[in-house]
């Protein structure tokens, strides 16, 4: 019952949004190119996904001001999958078959991506997925502009093992109980064991979505950290549960100088809801921070604040991923000279587009992109200070080298035309 009501509400809202937008951009001369935006505007994930919808609207508006693509205006089609995973698939189908969009930008959680995959394969369309994820996937119809584990998790652990990171010897892997933390922690555990960390020096802990009473776990972490070895926490805690987690850390006096917490899902947007003073020094690993200084980023932040009509609006990593992905799509369409899905998919690998950290990202044959990895420390004002970053851009690796069964797999949609080529058995699949 809850689903029907939500979806009704969602459809109504999405429909209204799409209609009003459709009317606004109806002035284009040639038929406009439609772009689908598939982000939750209600329900639990609205907290993260609403900004991604807005950033897409801004990017499309900017592109239209530059004359659109191939002389045609771009027309955004917004739908609301309402944080409801099966509804993501329904809405994706609606975008492709009824709205006839040329590409879709959307999804946040891995489970929503998994739910729309069959739709994109069946109806042959393009999805740009902007969020860091657990890897172990490479599909012909999906372009992953967020970080793969080797672009976020592994470098973060390397940093904590380094001298500047505090030479951590004991590890807490704390996560929310679903596919992304579980896979990431499996990869990290294998990686740590390979690095010579003893099994008893790794503590793994899972909590339900929206967990709010962190007293026991934080006190366990403190106890675990009192073994006389430098301890660090790797957090894949997602969404709303982070605020009470960090509040409890602050209250129980876990300081970053003693036990640093490096988070993979906490960005500027999430910190906006917390009093960050007790958290100064805790870390986050991303491919972009709002505090990065360069002209492209300054311009982007300025445009975003103007678009949101708020001086307090913050930018974050998945927004940058959409910025890169959208520009790559525009370039690929211009290169192919058409919005035909197959031709654009073939044109995308090799396309380069500037990112907002001063480099140029490239779409690889495995449909992942190159990105720099940055480690940031929380400041008292809710922004991050970059304390470490990779010298070069890191190419995204779809199949991790640290897990059995995955290290022999390779993805190459240009030469091999295969997303999971087994290099040992020399065959696809």
């Amino acid at each position: 019952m809850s689903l029907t009501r939500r979806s009704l509400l969602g459809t109504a809202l999405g429909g209204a949004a799409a209609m009003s937008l459709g009317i606004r951009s109806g002035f284009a001369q040639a038929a406009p190119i439609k772009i689908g935006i598939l982000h939750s505007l209600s329900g639990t994930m609205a907290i993260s996904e609403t900004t991604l919808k807005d950033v897409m609207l801004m990017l499309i508006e900017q592109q239209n001001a530059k004359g659109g693509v191939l002389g045609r205006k771009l027309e955004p089609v917004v739908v609301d999958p309402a944080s409801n995973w099966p509804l993501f698939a329904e809405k994706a189908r609606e975008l492709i078959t009824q709205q006839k969009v040329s590409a879709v930008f959307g999804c946040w959680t891995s489970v929503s991506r998994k739910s729309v995959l069959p739709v994109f394969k069946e109806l042959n369309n393009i999805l740009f997925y902007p969020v860091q994820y657990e890897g172990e996937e490479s599909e012909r119809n999906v372009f992953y502009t967020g970080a793969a584990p080797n672009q976020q998790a592994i470098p973060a652990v390397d940093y904590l093992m380094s001298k500047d990171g505090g030479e951590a010897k004991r590890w807490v892997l704390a996560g929310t109980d679903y596919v992304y933390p579980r896979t990431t922690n499996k990869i990290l555990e294998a990686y740590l064991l390979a690095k010579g960390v003893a099994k008893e020096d790794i503590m793994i802990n899972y909590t339900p979505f929206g967990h709010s009473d962190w007293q026991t776990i934080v006190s366990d972490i403190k106890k675990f950290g009192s073994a006389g070895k430098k301890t660090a926490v790797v957090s894949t805690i997602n969404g709303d549960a982070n605020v009470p987690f960090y509040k409890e850390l602050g209250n129980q006096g876990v300081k970053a100088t003693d036990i640093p917490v490096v988070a993979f899902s906490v960005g500027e947007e999430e910190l906006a809801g917390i009093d960050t003073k007790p958290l100064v020094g805790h870390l986050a690993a991303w491919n972009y921070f709002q505090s990065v200084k360069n002209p492209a980023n300054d311009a982007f932040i300025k445009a975003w604040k103007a678009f949101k009509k708020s001086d307090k609006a913050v930018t974050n990593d998945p927004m940058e991923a959409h910025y890169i992905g959208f520009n790559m799509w525009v370039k690929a369409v211009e290169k192919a000279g058409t919005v035909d899905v197959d031709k654009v998919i073939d044109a995308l690998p090799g396309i380069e587009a500037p990112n907002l950290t001063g480099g140029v990202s490239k779409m690889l044959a495995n449909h992942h992109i190159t990105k720099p990895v940055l480690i940031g420390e929380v400041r008292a004002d809710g922004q991050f200070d970059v304390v470490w970053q990779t010298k070069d851009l890191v190419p995204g690796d779809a199949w991790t080298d640290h897990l059995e069964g995955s290290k022999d797999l390779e993805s190459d949609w240009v030469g091999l035309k295969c997303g999971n080529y087994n290099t040992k058995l020399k065959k696809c699949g």
Partner: protein
Amino acid sequence: MRFCRLLAALAVLLCAMFLSPARAEGVDAALDRFLADSFAETEAAIGGVAQSGAPQAVAILQALGERRLFAHPASRGVFWRDAAGTAFDARTGLPAAMPGDAVVIRLNNRLRNVVQAALGTMTLLSPDPAVRLRAAESVFRSRDPAARAAIETAIAREPRGEIRRVLEEAHAAIMLADTGVPESVRIDAVRRLAETGDTEALGLLRQMLGPTAGPLRAAITQGIGAIEQRQQFRAAAQTVWFGVSLGSVLLLAAIGLAITFGVMGVINMAHGEMVMIGAYVTFLVQEALRQNAPQHLDWSLPIAIPLAFLVAGLVGVAIERGIIRFLYGRPLETLLATFGVSLVLQQAIRTWFGPTNREVSAPSYMSGAFEFLGLQITYGRLWIVVFTLVVFLGLLIVLKATPLGLQMRAVTQNRRMAAAMGIRTRFVDAMTFGLGSGIAGIAGVALSQIDNVSPNLGQSYIIDSFMVVVFGGVGNLWGTLVAAFTLGIANKVMEPFAGAVLGKILILVLLILFIQKRPRGLFALKGRAVEQ
């Protein structure tokens, strides 16, 4: 102006030269290293400043630790701002105009430790007890042998017992870590540390266990054993405390529902949204204070409590008058209607305030923690427990000792008889629902301190609240109290070995079994009212 400054700088320089010429040079050379914007150079600079003996050294390092130290490489200037925002030249220690493009000198966690250790040694004799305590704690952490002389002086002069204790611990830590001192002294240090019995001492002892041998090793092993044993007792007490604190949150969330659902029998799915409204009222009060009277920010919660009660209560009365009164006696329709109301309220808040979390900061009296009999108790949780009990008692008094309470009980026990006695049952219905909703709003004020203030806030508590009320026995306030604390403690006892996910599942399974056995909950109401 410039001339004056130059003169002043010259005077300070002369003065410094007269006192200790080599040291004055030291601080300049050290400050130069801040300009490089590299962590290695900054580390060298911290050491240089700490050893320079310059009078402004403490101010420089404090500023560095709090992101108030700035570098201006173009003019080779280093400046700090004090808490009021006045800029000082680090080379002279005098007020100076800071160039606008000076950049903050960054730190990482490793360097933050270096700064704290250096500051610790330098501020052991500070007149401010809070600074002295912090200094003693940093020396305990750094165990810098160079601080030994300073700490011995500090112990001799320290008037406050609790600070002297930390100082002595720090002293023991230094002695233990120093391989140069006789073994008997180190063994004494181990005993001293084992006596404190806290987690940090345990960490230190475990760390020292590796490189030692002989009687010292035996003493350390014994010390670790003693601390661990003491901590086992504490762990049990700590679990109970965590359970009480979780129970108080459950009780707070459920207590309003105990009225609307328990006393009135309305299945109110919008109960969570009343909690959410209370949290947003707190946010608005804080925003208003922050903009108009930031110095009174600590008063935001006392102001928010009556406001949240009023706002949530009025919304509750509106819901009762507008919807629920047409649906009395039709539980399924009530459930659907209130569920719809809950969705509407959520989306309304999402539209007005945005889907993202809103920041509600903790007032000073609710941040931090203290030790009580070796238990670590956070002020925030303690206040919530106290607050919950106050609200509970207040509600009990309203129900048992006021005319409104009497009328409420009369109406819920026998509506027609109450009406015949001249009670305005419609009015009492609205007031009862308003009371329940208002108390949910008050709960929102407290929950804004420990959870997200977002449109989803209420959803995360609605299931728990129903669980507590049903378990405790519908219509019985004491039952709700006992149920909340039972569930809280059971949850916390199970969490360490079952994990948070499995723990929650186990609790639900046990609850279902219990309800099978006793469908009316822990304390079932008896009498004619039950039969309806």
